[in-house]
C-alpha cells in the first residue's frame, strides 16, 4: 500500500515542471486578457523566454539568473503591448501576431550562438524537493492571483477595465495604468512558465524549443475561462498529457509518431468542450476583450 502511494506521489511530482509551465503561463495570459487586451503574442514571447532562460543559464551557470532574465524580458514585452494598444488605435491581434514573429526570430538569434559554445546548462535539479516546491509555489501564486482578482481594488479595476474601459475610466480608474500592470504581471508569469519549461522540463534546447507550447497555455487559459482556480485544473490535465504522452501512446497502442500531437489535439478539444458546455456562460470572456480603447485624441 505504502509503495503504491509512493508511486502515485512520484507520478504527480514528476509532472510538476510541466504543470508549473502551463499553469504560470496560462495564469499570466488570463490576467492580461482579463484587463481586455487580446493576447496573441504569447507563443512568440514564450519561445523567446525559453531561449533567454537557456542562454543566460548556459552562460552564467545559474538557473535562477535564467529564470529572472526570462521574467524580465517577458514583462518588458507585456508593457510594450499594453502601452501600444492603449496609446494608439491599433489592432490587438495585429500587434500580437507581429510580436509573435519577432519572438520566434529573436529566440533563434539568442539561443543558437550560445548553444554552439555551451550545448548544455546547469538545469534545475530533478529531485522531489524541487518538484514539490514547484507545485506548492505555483499553486500559492495562483491562489494569490485569485485573491487579487476577486477581492482587491486592483483586481476589481482589472476586471472593470476588461469589461468596459470607458466606464472604468469615468470612475477614475486609469486604464493605461491598469493594463500596464496586468501586462507586466501577466507576462512576468508567462516568462516564468517559459523558463521552467526549458530549465526544469525539457532540460535541453535546440532551435524551436517551446514553439507551440505558448498556444497550449493560451488554450488552457481559454478553456478555463481565465479563472485562476479552474486554470489550475486545466493545467493539471495538460501537464499530465505532456509529461506522460509516451505512456499514453504506449497504453493506447498508437503510433509513436502521433504522440507529439496529443497536447495540441487536447488543446483544441479543451476549447471546444469549454464552448459547447455551459462553462462558457459562467466564465464568459471580458466584454471588451480585443476591442480598441481609443478616445479620438490621445497624448502620446
Amino acid at each position, binding site marked *: 500500500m505504502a509503495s503504491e502511494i509512493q508511486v502515485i506521489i512520484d507520478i504527480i511530482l514528476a509532472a510538476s515542471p510541466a504543470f508549473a509551465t502551463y499553469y504560470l503561463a496560462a495564469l499570466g495570459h488570463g490576467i492580461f486578457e482579463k484587463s481586455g487586451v487580446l493576447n*496573441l503574442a504569447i*507563443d*512568440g514571447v514564450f519561445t523567446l523566454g525559453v531561449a533567454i532562460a537557456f542562454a543566460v543559464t548556459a552562460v552564467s551557470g545559474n538557473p535562477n539568473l535564467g529564470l529572472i532574465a526570462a521574467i524580465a524580458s517577458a514583462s518588458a514585452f507585456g508593457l510594450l503591448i499594453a502601452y*501600444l494598444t*492603449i*496609446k*494608439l*488605435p*491599433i489592432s490587438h*491581434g*495585429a*500587434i500580437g*501576431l*507581429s*510580436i*509573435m*514573429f*519577432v*519572438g*520566434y*526570430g*529573436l529566440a*533563434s*538569434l*539568442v539561443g*543558437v*550562438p550560445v548553444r*554552439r559554445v555551451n550545448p548544455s546548462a546547469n538545469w534545475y535539479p530533478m529531485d522531489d524537493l524541487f518538484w514539490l516546491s514547484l507545485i506548492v509555489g505555483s499553486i500559492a501564486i495562483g491562489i494569490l492571483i485569485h485573491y487579487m482578482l476577486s477581492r482587491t481594488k486592483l483586481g476589481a479595476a482589472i476586471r472593470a477595465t476588461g469589461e468596459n474601459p470607458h466606464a472604468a*475610466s469615468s470612475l477614475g480608474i*486609469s*486604464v493605461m495604468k491598469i493594463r500596464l500592470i496586468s501586462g507586466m504581471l501577466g507576462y512576468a508569469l508567462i516568462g516564468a512558465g517559459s523558463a521552467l519549461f526549458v530549465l526544469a522540463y525539457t532540460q535541453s534546447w*535546440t*532551435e*524551436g524549443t517551446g*514553439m*507551440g507550447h505558448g*498556444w*497550449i497555455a*493560451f*488554450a488552457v487559459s*481559454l478553456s478555463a475561462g481565465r479563472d485562476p482556480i479552474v486554470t489550475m485544473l486545466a493545467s493539471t490535465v495538460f501537464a499530465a498529457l505532456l509529461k506522460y504522452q509516451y505512456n499514453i501512446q504506449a497504453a493506447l497502442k498508437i*503510433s509513436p*509518431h*502521433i504522440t*507529439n*500531437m496529443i497536447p*495540441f*489535439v487536447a*488543446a*483544441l478539444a479543451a*476549447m*471546444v468542450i469549454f*464552448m*459547447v458546455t455551459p462553462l462558457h456562460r459562467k466564465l464568459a470572456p471580458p466584454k471588451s476583450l480585443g476591442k480598441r480603447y481609443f*478616445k*479620438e*485624441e*490621445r*497624448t*502620446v
Partner: protein
Amino acid sequence: MRVVVIRRVKPLPFGGIIIPLISIIIGILLSALVLYGVGVPPDIYFSTIATSFLSPQILRSFVLLTALGAALILSFSGAVWNIGAEGQMIWGMIGAGYIGVFVAASSYYISPSELPIYQAMPGVMILDASPTKPVISVLHMAPPLGQALMILVAILLGGLWALIAGSLKAFLEIDEVASTLILNYIAYFSFNYLVSEPLRGLSVQAKQFLRTDALHYALRFVRIPVPGTTVTYMEVALAVGVFIIVWFLLKYTTLGLRLKILGSNPNALKAAGVSTRKYIIIALTLSGLIAGSVGAMIFGANFYRLEKIDNIVTPPTQNMGYTAILVSWLSMLDIRAVPVSAYIVAALMQAGSELQARLGTGGVSGIVSGSAITYTLIGFVLITFTILRVFTEYELKFVRGEKSGE
C-alpha cells in the same frame, strides 16, 4: 507642449504606398541592428538584400507568395484571420503526395534479374536500383490526368483543414488565430506520422529516412527553362489563375462584397438577414483551398516526395504560410498590390537564406539560421507596419497646454 494622436480629416494621401514602403525600410533597419548585435555585419546584410531583389531565384517564391497572399486577402477581407495556411499547405502536400506516389503511379519491388527489362520499359521509373531489392515506380494514368488529380485532392484537403477552424469560429466562436495555429502543429505532426508509417516508401532511402518514395518523372511539374530559377509552368498558371479569381470575386461578386462587409461591419450583414457564420466559413475555406493547391506545388514542383519534418522551425513549406501574412498586410488588403508586396517579400526571404549561405563561408556559420532571419525580418516589418498604419487615418499633432488626462 504635448503630442496628440487625432483622426485625420482626409486619409493620408498615397498612404497605401508610403506606409508599407516606410515599414519595410524601418523593418530592415531594425532587423539589421538586431542581427548586428549577434555578429552579422550590416554591410553584408544590406548588400545581400539589395542583390536578392535582382536574383532570378526569387521568381518561384514570388509566384507562390502571390497565390498565398491572394488566398489570405480573401479571408482577411472578412476580418477572419487565417494564420493556418501552413497547415493547409501541409495537407495539400499530403494530398498531392498520396495521389502522386500511390494512385497516379505506385512503387513495386521487383527481382534483381528483372531490372534490365524494366529499365527499357516506357512509363517505368527505377526508384532504387539496389542489387538485392530493386524498386520501380509504374505510371497508372496519363500524366496530365495524374497531375490534375494531385492538385484537386490537395485543394480539397487544404479546404477541409481550413473548414475545421472555420466551423469552430462560426459555431463556437473559438478564436481562429489560436485554432489555425494549433491546427498547423497538428498538421505537421500528422504529416510526420503519415510519411513515417502509412505512406512510407519501399526504396532503401525511404527505409533509411522517414519518407515516401519519389514522384514518377512523368508526374513532376515541368520547369520553365529560364536559367537560375526553378519555377514551373504549373506554378505560374496557378498564381495567375488564383490572382484573377480572387480579384474577380472581391470586385465583382456578391460573395466578395459580403466578405468585405463581414470585415468592416458584420452587424450590417446580420441586419440584412445574411448569415455571418456562412461567410466566416466561406472565407476560411476558400483561402484554405488555395493554400492546399500551393501545397501541391511544393510537392510536385520541388520536393517530389514527402519527408519527415525534423524541426518544426524548418518545415518544407519554408514558413510561407506565415510570410504570406506579411504579403497581404503590406498590400493593405488590396489584391492589385499583392504581386508587388509578394515580390518584395520574396526578395527578403531569399536574402535570409542567401545570408545564411554567405555567412557560412565568412566564418560566423552557425550563428544565424535562415528561419531566424526570416522571422526577425517579418516580425519587425509587421510591427512597424501595424504601428504606422494608424497614421493613414490618424495624425500626430503638437499642441500647447497641459496634459488633459488620458
